[in-house]
């Protein structure tokens, strides 16, 4: 796809290639799901399917090891969806359209690579591949205080990945029992289970914080509001929708999976932090005036929920976490797409300067309401399913401490309702604030297409959750057995 983009000359060609590529991606993702399900149905119970491994750097035993389980499959589907919608959302982007799409594709490559890697090194590499383009995408095509945001985002995430790198190297050097062949392969490490406890004590926080930064865990979340606010639409979508999920996925796949002992010992610290994230993000969102900031803080809250659920260490909560990743990914992408479209018309994101947009652009208005409803957990849309699974799962925890925190996290749903309705009420309903807005037009076809795609996805999860939940549970179950 990158190659195709590099070759294409005119804007039209770029678009055509991007759309073709994204569609192919969707098709591949769908094919993957079907294959995966049929294999599972055929009774294949190995933890990862479609595995492949190519030696990369023999002296350190680094391989390009790929494979998917239920969780990665759904994450891939999510990414494919968002990339697909993102291409349509950035239809009219100027200037340097070609370069933009090239970086965009590189970013997607990183994301997909991350989800299918089962080798720590490759995973880390793809993580960085996904990260670096962000800087350029925000710095060049962003808006507002973009240099600051891009810098902050990149630096903070790089800081996180420094921790992560340390953690990964630590894991690598304890990956095999004394005298064994050291390995980067996650499955082998988990099988060996050879990391000494005192090392786990240091490595777990490192890896968790490393991924937690990307998952916008309190207090390492501040890159997210600025970054999102400055990023162009599709990048915000991909970033909030997929990139932040890398954090949750990584925490689960590396920190928890490889170091079960430390997880049980130390999870309370992170539980407190993520619990704070959940409520804190929600409260913060209540007083913001910039649409993107509101959404970014809501992302902090929702992503906090993901990490929170992961730390509960039981299958149901874990399933909920993955569902939340899916759901949050889709609905934030939807949000950012809509915000981008509204911004593209009104040229302001200040909610105090907007009003009555429902009359002017009913399609976008309805889309926004649907996104809002998904976000505040309306049954039938994805947010409800995810949150309920998390709450029920978390509440099954035997500890009073965990349950009290669950109650606290539950409170966030009320606060979510407050800020969502505040925004919806301010910008969509009421009288038109700005006379100029009356001349604005509703969405164009490609925008409609992007929005409808996402809404359908959100509704699909909301209406038929068991399909997704079963795939995830199957994958989460063996891992969570470690803690039983």
């Amino acid at each position, binding site marked *: 796809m990158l190659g195709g983009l590099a070759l294409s000359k005119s804007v039209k060609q770029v678009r055509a290639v991007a759309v073709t590529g994204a569609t192919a991606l969707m098709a591949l993702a769908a094919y993957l799901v079907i294959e995966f399900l049929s294999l599972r149905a055929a009774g294949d119970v190995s933890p990862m399917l479609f595995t492949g491994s190519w030696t990369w750097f023999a002296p350190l035993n680094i391989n390009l090891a790929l494979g998917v389980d239920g969780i990665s499959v759904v994450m891939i589907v999510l990414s494919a969806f968002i990339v697909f919608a993102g291409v349509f959302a950035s239809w009219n982007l100027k200037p340097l359209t070609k370069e933009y799409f090239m970086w965009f594709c590189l970013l997607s490559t990183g994301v997909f690579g991350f989800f299918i890697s089962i080798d720590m090194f490759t995973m880390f590499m793809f993580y960085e591949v996904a990260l670096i383009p962000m800087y350029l995408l925000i710095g060049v095509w962003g808006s507002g205080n973009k240099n600051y945001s891009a810098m902050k985002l990149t630096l903070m995430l790089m800081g996180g990945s420094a921790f992560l790198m340390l953690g990964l190297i630590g894991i690598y050097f304890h990956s095999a029992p004394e005298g064994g062949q050291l390995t980067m392969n996650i499955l082998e490490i988990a099988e060996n289970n050879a990391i000494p406890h005192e090392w786990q004590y240091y490595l777990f926080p490192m890896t968790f914080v490393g991924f937690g930064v990307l998952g916008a865990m309190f207090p390492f*979340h501040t890159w997210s509001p600025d970054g999102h606010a400055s990023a162009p639409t599709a990048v915000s979508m991909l970033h909030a929708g997929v990139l932040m999920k890398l954090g949750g996925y990584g925490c689960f796949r590396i920190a928890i999976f490889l170091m079960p002992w430390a997880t049980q010992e130390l999870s309370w610290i992170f539980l407190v932090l993520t619990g704070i994230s959940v409520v804190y993000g929600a409260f913060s969102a209540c007083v913001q005036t910039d649409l993107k900031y509101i959404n970014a803080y809501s992302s902090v809250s929702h992503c906090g929920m993901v990490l929170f659920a992961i730390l509960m260490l039981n299958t149901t909560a874990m399933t909920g976490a993955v569902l939340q990743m899916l759901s949050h990914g889709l609905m934030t992408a939807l949000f950012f797409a809509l915000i981008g479209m509204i911004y593209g018309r009104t040229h302001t994101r200040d909610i105090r300067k907007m009003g009555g947009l429902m009359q002017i652009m009913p399609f976008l208005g309805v889309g926004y309401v649907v996104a809002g409803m998904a976000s505040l957990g309306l049954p039938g849309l994805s947010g409800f399913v995810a949150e309920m699974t998390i709450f029920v799962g978390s509440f099954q925890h035997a500890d009073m401490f965990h349950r009290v925190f669950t109650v606290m996290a539950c409170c966030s749903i009320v606060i979510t309702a407050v800020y969502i309705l505040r925004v919806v009420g301010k910008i969509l309903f009421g*009288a038109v604030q700005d006379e100029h807005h009356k001349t604005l037009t509703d969405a164009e076809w490609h925008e409609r297409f992007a929005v409808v795609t996402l809404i359908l996805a959100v509704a699909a999860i909301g209406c038929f*959750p068991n399909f997704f939940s079963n795939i995830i549970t199957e994958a989460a179950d063996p891992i969570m057995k470690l803690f039983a």
Partner: protein
Amino acid sequence: MELSYTVAVLIIPIVMFLFLGIVGVKLSKKTAGLLGTCAMGVTTLIAYASALTYFFGTSQGQIVDGVRQQLEVLDITWLQFTENLVIKLGILLDPISAMMLIVITTVSLMVHIYSLGYMDGEKGFQRYYAFLSLFTFSMLGLVVATNIFQMYIFWELVGVSSYLLIGFYYTLPAAVSASKKAFIVTRFADLGFLLGILILSFYTKTFDFVTLTSNPSAAITSAGGATFMGCSVMAWALTLIFMGGAGKSAMFPLHIWLPDAMEGPTPVSALIHAATMVVAGVYLVARLFPVYCLEEGTMTVITVIGCVTALYAAAVACVQSDIKRVLAFSTISQIAFMITSLGVARPELHEGVGYMASMFHLFTHAMFKALLFLCAGAIIHAVHSNEMSKMGGLRKYMPICNIAFLIGCLAISGIWPFAGFFSKDEILVAAYANSPVWGIWLSAVAGMTAFYMFRLYYKIFWWNNPDYGHHTPHEAPMTMTFPLIFLSLVSIVAGFVPFGDLVTWNRGVLHTQIVWAVAGTSTVIAVAAIALATVLYYKENPVPTKMADACRGLWTAAYKRFYMDELYQFITHKIIFACISRPIAWFDRRIIDGTFDLLANVTNSASYAVRKLQGGTIQGYVLVYILGAAILAAVSIICLI
């Protein structure tokens, strides 16, 4: 299963909602309205069919030993949490759900028909019908829920459709803020509901109503006597669940959203905020009644809240000047009656008459309150105002409406043979049976009810008419009067439905008879109250104003709804927004962001500082080199010695 066609009552409205919501704009208004109404008609027929089959059909062994069985017509796994905790979507038919099916579909159908006339010419007619369908769908889903989580799902959906309908006139700021308020307040209550569900399911390992209620003591004991802050966890769970119910049913102190919700179109008020949705809380408690009645503490909480609300709302209703507000507070008061009735009900007292009375009152109240609201709608439609001061003498212009409204008032006041008499009577019986305190309290409130309803009636229909200007009020069109007539008839005869045979707490048969002592007293009180209202308000006269002046403080307080709104405003804006959100946002910007910015700045300035060392001044280099060498040498010499 025989009754599986009941599924259609859910499917038709949701399909209608999607259809009207997506392609509605392309249809003409007439088509959309008729389509919606016809669909609703079909739904109603099916609901009647299944309910009647359930009550009176005997073929499938529905009645075993005089007890009606609960029929799970449908049960699909929707989402599996753990092995035990599964959300299923299904349809549970038992007396209360069958009764609710009738209530909801009837009122909904009436409102659909009525709206054809009332909403004629409004912008967004199609959207309106789509929302109505959505609401009907959710409400029906709520009542037929087989498990508490399904109920929660539809509970939320009901909340949203209510939000959408209240905010129907979305260009009016008042409507927008009212809808927001309604949603957030009920959402807050739902938080309690959710937590209650979590606690309950954590101990009992099930969401299923049938499992919970068929063996309630097992549910209670499953907690193993665990306590939290001095109360047993089950009491917590049930109280929290009741909190959800209290929010939806607008119990004090979570009632504040309901009066504001009157910003929505009047038929919506009739459907949602008078007849159906607001009784969801009552329904919820009734659903879990076998479990509730084993927790004495929770029952007391329910009773007290019910009583306080009943009195509070009645007091406020006496002084309001907006016709819909009066009706709204009367609704709150009446629902509080139902809640209290459940609270005082015990299986051992009169065979659990309170439960039956509550359901009975729910049924009759839905009918006559819908009637009253629709009348109010017709009046508002005619005079284009909600304020009573803009009305008066309407009996000449709107005779049908006059009579319908009178019937409604008589029904709510509890005058024989209107519906309210029977149900309210049963409630009073149950209250006296529990404790005379509650009985007397409720009787007093019943008197107030009669008073303020007739105050309203006289002010609207009898006082001297103000200057109506060009458009003289006239009778509403046929589409609007038909529902009025129909509901009037129902309000008259509904009292004679043998509820004791149909809807009881153990689904058996309850032998009720009118306790004339109670009934007589309450009738006397009601008549006295009506007489008082007649004296005071029959004609425009200065007495009420004088009375209001006499106790100005009380009057103002009541008019301002005892400052509950202000209190909430204070809590949300001053405390939550100003004292939590803003500091957090500030903390985020300054402290956390500041920390990271500081890190960056320190790095930056450190590099600036270090940069000078590499400034290219040879002299500096030499200095450092020499000193460094000297230090190294000194160190090595010292070490060597």
